[in-house]
């Protein structure tokens, strides 16, 4: 067995271990059903109230900025992205931090497996939960708001999500790396998540932001993912219409992953020098 194959097996085992532990807390499933419904539904109802319950002039004004009159779909896609982003910003870092507090991180680092397994495997274990969120949100969109999404557009959205996964996971891993050096990174994650919500057009069109903020938004991968999903689902853009964005996402993923690995190596070495690997 080559080293790479052995690390790949360790990677699968690490993700499987996380899932096994989640499975031992069955009430967690409720959160998969509750939040994906309540959070976006609140915003949709608020939007409908502000627009006079579907007033045509209000919807036209919204479409001018958002590219669609589908308010519920717009918000639900934004919130799907928000929950995915939250999972990724909190998940991997929390997994590493939990290992640190529990005392198991040193045991993991005593093995010959690449340290990157500990960095990248936990985010993968969160993928099923993100998929579950997407499915629940799609079902609610259909059943509660009567939005029927064409199958072809759904498949295109899945392609967009698949292309966006590496860049999103690279962002999550970047935060996880900082746990090694700083321990508790919750406040920074809160701050960054808030910035993403504001900049990436989660509940409103990017066009509402001032010009300089729109430039900043263009540097963030979630902006492209959420906008491209809306484009293929509600604007009929097709994959050809978002191809450049998808290429950009691949480039973002490569860049952020390289930065995450570099940051991880620097911080891991710093932690080994300072003896903070196993600190509380």
């Amino acid at each position, binding site marked *: *067995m080559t080293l790479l194959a052995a690390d790949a097996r*360790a990677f699968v085992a690490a993700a499987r271990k996380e899932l096994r532990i989640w499975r*031992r807390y069955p009430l967690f499933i409720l959160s998969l059903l509750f939040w994906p419904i309540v959070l976006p539904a609140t915003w949709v109802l608020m939007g409908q109230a502000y627009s006079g319950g579907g007033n045509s002039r209000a919807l036209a004004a919204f479409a001018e900025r958002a590219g669609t009159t589908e308010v519920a779909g717009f918000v639900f896609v934004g919130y799907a992205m928000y929950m995915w982003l939250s999972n990724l910003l909190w998940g991997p870092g929390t997994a590493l931090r939990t290992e640190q507090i529990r005392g*198991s991180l*040193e045991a993991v680092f005593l*093995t010959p497996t690449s340290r990157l397994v500990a960095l990248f495997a936990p985010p993968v274990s969160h993928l099923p939960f993100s998929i579950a969120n997407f499915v629940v949100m799609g079902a609610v969109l259909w059943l509660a708001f009567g939005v029927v999404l064409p199958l072809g557009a759904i498949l295109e959205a899945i392609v967009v999500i698949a292309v966006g996964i590496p860049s999103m996971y690279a962002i999550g891993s970047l935060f996880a790396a900082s746990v090694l050096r700083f321990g508790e990174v919750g406040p920074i994650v809160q701050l960054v998540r808030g910035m993403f919500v504001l900049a990436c057009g989660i509940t409103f069109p990017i066009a509402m932001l001032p010009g300089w903020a729109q430039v900043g938004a263009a540097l963030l991968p979630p902006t492209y993912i959420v906008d491209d999903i809306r484009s293929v689902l509600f604007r009929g853009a097709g994959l050809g219409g978002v191809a450049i964005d998808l290429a950009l996402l691949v480039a973002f993923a490569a860049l952020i992953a390289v930065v995450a690995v570099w940051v991880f190596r620097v911080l891991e070495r710093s932690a*080994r020098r300072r003896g903070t690997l*196993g600190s509380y």
Partner: protein
Amino acid sequence: MIAPAVDARGLVKVFERGRRTVWQRLRGEPDRRERFHAVDGIDLTVERGEIFGLLGPNGAGKTTTMKMLATLLIPTDGTIDVLGIDVLARPREVRARLGAMLSGERSLYWKLTGRENLEYFAALYHVPARETRARIDAALGSVKLLDRADDYVERYSTGMRQRLALARALLPDPPLIILDEPTVGLDPQAARDLRDRVRELRSQGRTVLLTTHYMDEADQLCDRVAIIDHGRIVALDTPAALKRTIRAEEVVHLEIGLVDGSAAPADEGAVLERLGRAATVARSERHNGTLAVTAHCSSARDFVPAAFDAARSAGATIRHVEVVPVTLEDVFISLTGRALRE
């Protein structure tokens, strides 16, 4: 020639005490943190096939040394070869050949079963998939946990968790196993059980390097012991040879009352000076009106009556006498003037 299991030269680890805030850094203020030598120039050779113990009080530098050997800490200075491999240059190769139990029961996943824990770590140790089951069964069998393999770890006793942590260390079939305070927190039966497992590891031809602050454990278990204090090795030999350095056959613990009713308190210095004529006073500690003395002597039968005379002539009263054989604790006291517990 086969390289020793561990060969460390001039090992130093310096930590910084205190904090340097971001504000201080931004203002370019000088770094005023105190530099603390956790390990201060250790030379250590552990031969293959032996059980080697690092004995010392808490904070002596034992765990820091272990963590440097196990690649978890980067030494400030010095070199370490483990099984002939340079730890600093090729840490991953060292980890592949090393079984380690450093943080005991805390390092396990309590919401997984014992077997699930080992399945996970077998993959991390790169155990081939087709060998995993047999390797796990062998490891569980060697720590007598096969019958509880499918229970959640949260339902294990502390001793069982320690044994599971030991089983995990056996997964890579390592020639060298390092154990940091393996019996701490265990009841006497569980500790005895774990020591038996450690002896079995030696009989399988493995090398075991362990730390402990239990003198009995070091005495009973180890082929050689290094006594460590303030980051330095102060003595290194077999337990028997270390005990011979005391030059005493017996150790006498005395509890001497210096204050007796309305009489003036006895002079502590005078009591110790008179006792010193009949034996070596290794350690004395005064607490309120009582003086606790540890004396090394060739014959307690001769020393105890002399001690009573000495105390009486100095105006003090002996309240308690205990005669014990020489232990490694006495060696530690004679070398450092302090007890292991202090």
